[in-house]
C-alpha cells in the first residue's frame, strides 16, 4: 500500500490546513476537536482505501467522513449536551458589531447547537443546497430548514441581520411569533433528545 501512504502524505501536507479549517468551523472553534476529527477521518478513509485513490478523491471522502464523525459524535453525546445545557453560563448578550466581526462570528458559531452549526457551515461555507445538506446529514429537508432558521435567528441576534438570501428556501418554516421563542424551544429540543 505504498501508493496509499503517498496519497495520505500528499493529502495531509497539501490539504491538511483546509481540512482543519473546515473541521474547526464545524466544532465551533475547538481546534483540538478539529484535529481529532480530521485525523480520525483520514485514518478511517485510508484504513479501507482501495487502489487508485488520488488526493482529490480522497479529500472528498475525508470531508464527508469528517462530517459523519462530527454528526455521529454529537448524536452520541446528546446526553452530555442535555446536561451541559442546564449548567451553561448565561448568554452575555449580543456582541457589538465591530471591525473584529470575525471574533463575534466565532463566538456566535460556538453558541449554536452542533446541528445548527453544521447546517450553517454546509450551507454557507461548503455552498451546498438545502437538499444536499439534508442528504449529507441524513435529515429531512424541513428539519434542515428549521435548523437554518433557528441558526440564522441566533446569529442575527449577535451579528445583526444576516444575509441569508435563499438559505431557508421556499418551504414554509416554522418561525416563532414575536421573534423571542427560539431560546425556549431550542432548549426543549436539545435537552429532549
Amino acid at each position, binding site marked *: 500500500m505504498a501508493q*496509499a501512504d503517498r496519497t495520505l502524505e500528499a493529502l*495531509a501536507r497539501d490539504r491538511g490546513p483546509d481540512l482543519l479549517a473546515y473541521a474547526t468551523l464545524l466544532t465551533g472553534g475547538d481546534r483540538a476537536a478539529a484535529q481529532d476529527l480530521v485525523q480520525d477521518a483520514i485514518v478511517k478513509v485510508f*484504513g479501507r482505501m482501495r487502489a487508485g485513490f488520488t488526493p482529490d478523491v480522497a479529500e472528498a471522502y475525508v470531508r464527508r467522513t469528517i462530517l459523519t464523525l462530527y454528526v455521529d459524535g454529537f448524536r452520541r*453525546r446528546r446526553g452530555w449536551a442535555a446536561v451541559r445545557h442546564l449548567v451553561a453560563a448565561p448568554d452575555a448578550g449580543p456582541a457589538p458589531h465591530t471591525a473584529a466581526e470575525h471574533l463575534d462570528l466565532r463566538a456566535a458559531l460556538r453558541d449554536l447547537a452542533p446541528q445548527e452549526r453544521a447546517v450553517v*457551515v454546509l450551507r454557507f461555507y461548503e455552498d451546498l443546497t438545502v437538499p444536499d445538506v439534508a442528504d449529507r446529514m441524513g435529515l429531512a429537508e424541513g428539519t434542515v430548514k428549521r435548523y437554518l432558521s433557528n441558526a440564522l435567528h441566533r446569529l442575527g441576534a449577535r451579528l445583526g441581520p444576516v444575509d441569508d438570501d435563499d438559505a431557508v428556501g421556499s418551504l414554509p418554516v416554522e418561525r416563532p411569533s414575536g421573534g423571542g421563542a427560539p431560546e425556549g424551544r431550542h432548549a426543549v429540543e436539545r435537552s429532549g433528545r
Partner: protein
Amino acid sequence: MSYDLRRGLDTLAAEERASAEALPVEALRTRARRRRTARTAAASGLAVATVAAVAVAAAALPVRLGTPPAGTPAPTTTAGAWPSAVTPTGPVPGCGDVIPPIVRPQDPEITVEVEVGVPPVQGGRVNTGVTIVSPPGFQVAYEDTGVVALLVRDGVVVAVPDAGGAGVAYFSDAGEMGVLAREPRAVPCAADDGALEPGTYELYVFAELLRGDPLTLTWTDAMTVVGGPVPVTLD
C-alpha cells in the same frame, strides 16, 4: 446593511488555515496501516478472538469524574471486575522516578500496544502510535491527558510529555481499534537545551482507563494499564 455570512465564514476559515498545525503524517500512516491490517485479517477470517478489539472513537468532550448530576441515568456499562491487564504496582512515575514493578498476567485481556516510528523522536515529539485493546463489549474510556508516554533509561524516567492536552475523552465503540490521536511531546528531565542524548532508551506508556456511563461521561472507577517497554534508539 446585513452581515455577509459567507464572507465571514471564509475569513474565519482563512485564519484557521493560516494557523493550522501540521497533521502528524507518520502517526496517521501507522494508524491507517493498522486499520487496514485489522480489516484484512477480519475479512480473511484470521481475526483472533482475543484481539476482537475495542475501540476508542473520538468524542471531543471534557471528561468529568465524580457523581452524576441528579436526573441523569445510572451508569449502564460494564460493572464488576476489570478484565486482566498489565498494570503498575505504583503511581504513574514522573521525571527522575524509577519505573515501578509491572504486573504482567498471562494473556491479558486489556493491552496497550505501542509502536514507535522512524525517527522515534522528531521535533520534540515522540513519534509513536498507541492502541488500547480490550475485550468485545467492555466499554472503556480514557482522556488524552490520562495517557502518558515516558522515555526511560536504566529504569529511570528521563523524559516526560509536556503538560499540554485538551482533556479530550475517547470512549469505546466495539469493532474498531483505538489509537491515540496525538503524539506526546517529550520533555527531557535534565538537559538544559531540551535535547535528548543519543543512546538507547525504553518507551513506556501508562494509560488511565475509565469506565462508567459514556453518554453522560460520568466515570465510576479507573485503572492504570501499561504498555511497553519498547526499545528506542536516538542517534
